[in-house]
């Protein structure tokens, strides 16, 4: 957001450096049930982002003082692997990952029927294998599928995608160059059946008009991802799927 460049991010025909149009998201691949040990798991690629999510639980909550006698708590750990970015990332938890873990867990709370599992913990692990802008959205998209794969009752599945602004154009699903040299980034997650917002952040500089456009694009993108999330689950569990459970 802070960088400057002579690079033209959107050409005069409205085409972006990776050939997409402003309202187009990157290629998406979603696979449910990819890990043997986890109760639920998912693998998501969106553009060059590669993300794994695993769910353990509902299981006994540790540390015990976090237990809630009325419902399960969702504990999320978002982690970027050291080789996921161009300069090696220092391993371990940093402030950014603490914040992302917090807002991801809060977003999931809205759809998971936590009241069914008092005192329990539902642990969600998100590992970023490769990062190319939009990893928190990819992580949440994967985590939702992993929760469904774990058979945890949910009101809906959450898709998440960012919109933003680069070269003065409002764009869906910024890639790394657009994110680095653009003017704004708006990660969004919704409950698709109601369009309620469960995750929203924004940084950069946007007028009301630009922001409204960004939300419109991101809501549309979320609905696209929602279809792919359901397809991934159908592929695993629907007719003709190779479910082993």
């Amino acid at each position, binding site marked *: 957001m802070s960088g400057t460049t002579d690079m033209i991010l959107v050409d005069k025909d409205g085409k972006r450096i990776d050939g997409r149009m402003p309202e187009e998201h990157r290629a998406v691949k979603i696979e449910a049930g990819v890990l043997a040990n986890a109760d639920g798991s998912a693998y998501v690629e969106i553009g060059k982002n590669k993300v794994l999510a695993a769910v353990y639980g509902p299981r006994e909550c540790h540390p015990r003082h976090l237990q809630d006698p009325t419902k399960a708590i969702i504990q999320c750990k978002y982690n970027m692997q050291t080789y996921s970015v161009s300069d090696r990332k220092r391993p371990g938890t940093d402030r950014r990952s603490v914040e992302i873990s*917090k807002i991801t867990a809060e977003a999931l709370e809205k759809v998971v029927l936590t009241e069914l599992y008092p005192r329990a913990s539902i642990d969600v692990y998100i590992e970023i294998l490769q990062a190319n802008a939009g990893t928190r959205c990819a992580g949440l998209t994967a985590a939702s599928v992993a929760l469904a794969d774990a058979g945890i009752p949910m009101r809906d599945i959450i898709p998440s995608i960012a919109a933003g602004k680069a070269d003065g154009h409002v764009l869906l699903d910024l890639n790394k160059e657009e994110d680095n040299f653009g003017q704004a980034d708006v990660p969004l997650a919704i409950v698709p059946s109601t369009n309620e*917002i469960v995750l*929203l952040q*924004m940084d950069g*500089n946007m007028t009301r008009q630009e922001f409204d456009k960004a939300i419109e694009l991101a*809501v549309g993108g979320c609905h696209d991802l929602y279809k792919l999330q359901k397809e991934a689950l159908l592929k695993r569990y629907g007719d003709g799927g190779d479910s082993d459970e």
Partner: protein
Amino acid sequence: MSNQVISEIRRDHILNLLKDGRRTDGRKVDDFRKIKFETGIIESADGSAVVEIGKTKVTAGVKIMPGTPFGDTPNMGVLTTGAELIPMAHPSFESGPPGADSIELARVVDRGIRESGMIDMSKLCIKEGEEVWMCFLDLYAINYDGNLFDAFTLASVLALKTAIIPNEQYGKGENKPLPITCIPISATAAKVGSSLILDPNFDEEHISSARLTVTTDDDGNFRAMQKGGQGSITLDELSRCLDMAVAKGKEIRELIG
């Protein structure tokens, strides 16, 4: 911010009043509590402020010192923001390293200041690639009664706005004011029942299902946002939050002058 439980009777009281658009302290839904502030309270800091929003009280202090720039921004100054929820401020706060709440607070405040370009970082370069001014902005909750996001942002803005680059201390000539370009103001709305209320107090914050912090600049453009809480907000509610944040930003900007 803490896991405090609000009694059913108090919760019902707040919700019942809100049905008529009223609040327990007599405010309207889009009213802030009384804001008081003072700058330059700490002489050993290069900039400082204390802010009260109702009974919520916070301090902010800036220390500015020469340091090495980041490799990818060799001619830009550095801003680092920390927030601490010290046990003095509320019985539910514990000492120890910053938890997720204080990290989120610090990052949301930081984002508003950074993304608004409030500090002209390009003027904080001493020698390209070698030495730049680093601004350490530290925030402390002194008394917690809700809405630390806005109290911390306002205190930060006031401390930075009045901060001095301590050239003399480091033998670099005369002291100069920190280069400021605009005044970012945040306004936080909480969703309580089906109502949206600005500047939630402790009780309102603890029965709210979601919150949205929106930081605007001098032109009323959006510079940072953060949704929090386990609930959701509708697109219509989002739109109302944005309107309220622009109006309140203007009002508070006038108040601090």
